[in-house]
């Protein structure tokens, strides 16, 4: 006998992601999923971004395979942080994020920043319930990355190009990078920043501020339709 199934293999993850999304929307919280390769500067970007967003009540979910080093770095900034350890998995999945959200006091937050595990392939496959994905690419990784990891670059709502202070010392071709990126993603803004010098952080933080306030519309790019959930507008909570 034959059983017709026709279901997304990741349906179980996506259901939990939908619940996360509903829970966050009910609390009027914007959640951003930060994805990059190891060493591109996810934690450094959060360290620079968090002080620039003082008007928001922030929480951080810090995804890693092992160790609480990144979580410890974020905790020094005085924001609530939950370290999520995947115990080997190269990406975050929605149930782990759900547990992380339970440990945060969601009534006291406007914005949750989720730092995924360092990897630009698998994290793009798993919806966590975020409002938007933000990709971080560092110039030392090379300008050819969009075409090599198309799913991530297709799905991000913004791309942060980090370590631009090193541009003169690398063969990173910005024009070629942008040409390739635009073929995959017509609209996402690209922010050239250096977490080391602070260059470009203001402009990037300004964008995130507008997203958190619902003034810039972002789309989570889930692979399955999420019925009944609309992107929420975000009245200011102080």
């Amino acid at each position, binding site marked *: *006998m*034959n*059983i017709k199934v026709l279901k997304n293999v*990741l349906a179980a993850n996506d259901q939990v992601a939908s619940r996360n999304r509903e829970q966050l929307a009910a609390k009027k919280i914007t959640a951003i999923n930060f994805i990059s390769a190891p060493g591109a500067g996810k934690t450094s970007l959060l360290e620079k971004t968090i002080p620039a967003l003082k008007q928001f009540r922030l929480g951080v979910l810090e995804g890693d395979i092992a160790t609480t080093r990144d979580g410890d770095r974020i905790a020094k900034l005085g924001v609530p942080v939950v370290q999520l350890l995947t115990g080997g998995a190269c990406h975050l999945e929605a149930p782990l994020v759900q547990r992380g959200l339970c440990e945060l006091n969601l009534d006291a937050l406007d914005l949750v920043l989720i730092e995924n595990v360092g990897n630009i392939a698998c994290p793009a*496959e798993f919806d966590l319930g975020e409002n938007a994905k933000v990709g971080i690419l560092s110039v030392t990784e090379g300008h050819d990355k969009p075409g090599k990891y198309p799913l991530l670059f*297709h799905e991000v709502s913004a791309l942060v190009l980090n370590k631009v202070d090193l541009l003169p010392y690398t063969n990173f071709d910005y024009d070629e990078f942008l040409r390739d990126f635009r*073929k995959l993603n017509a609209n996402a803004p690209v922010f050239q920043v250096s977490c080391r010098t602070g260059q470009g952080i203001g402009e990037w933080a300004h964008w995130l501020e507008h997203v958190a306030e619902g003034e810039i519309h972002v789309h989570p790019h889930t692979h399955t339709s999420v019925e009944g959930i609309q992107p929420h507008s975000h009245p200011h909570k102080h």
Partner: protein
Amino acid sequence: MSIVEALLEQIRQETRDYPAKRVSIVRVRIGALRQVVPETLTFCFTAAVRGTPLENCRLDIEQLPATARCRKCSLMFPVTESWFECPSCHEAGAELLQGNELELMSLDLT
């Protein structure tokens, strides 16, 4: 491996009502934009089902090419090196029609 675990859980749920049957074929389809390598999926699947009731079942993987439609001139085109840029009018941001699938299609039970 996470994908295989999700797939096995889905198979367990779908076959719950047929405890006397054995799964002979598992059919999945993967869109070209998903970063799931068929050989790797098969390798992980084979490793994961060893010593379980699914041990001898066959995993059939259908690969679907990615197709997009230009939002300006409506041309439908295969998503290749130029990705979502229309090959005719060069408009960026074409709409993806097919290529994002990662689906369990059907199961054969004997």
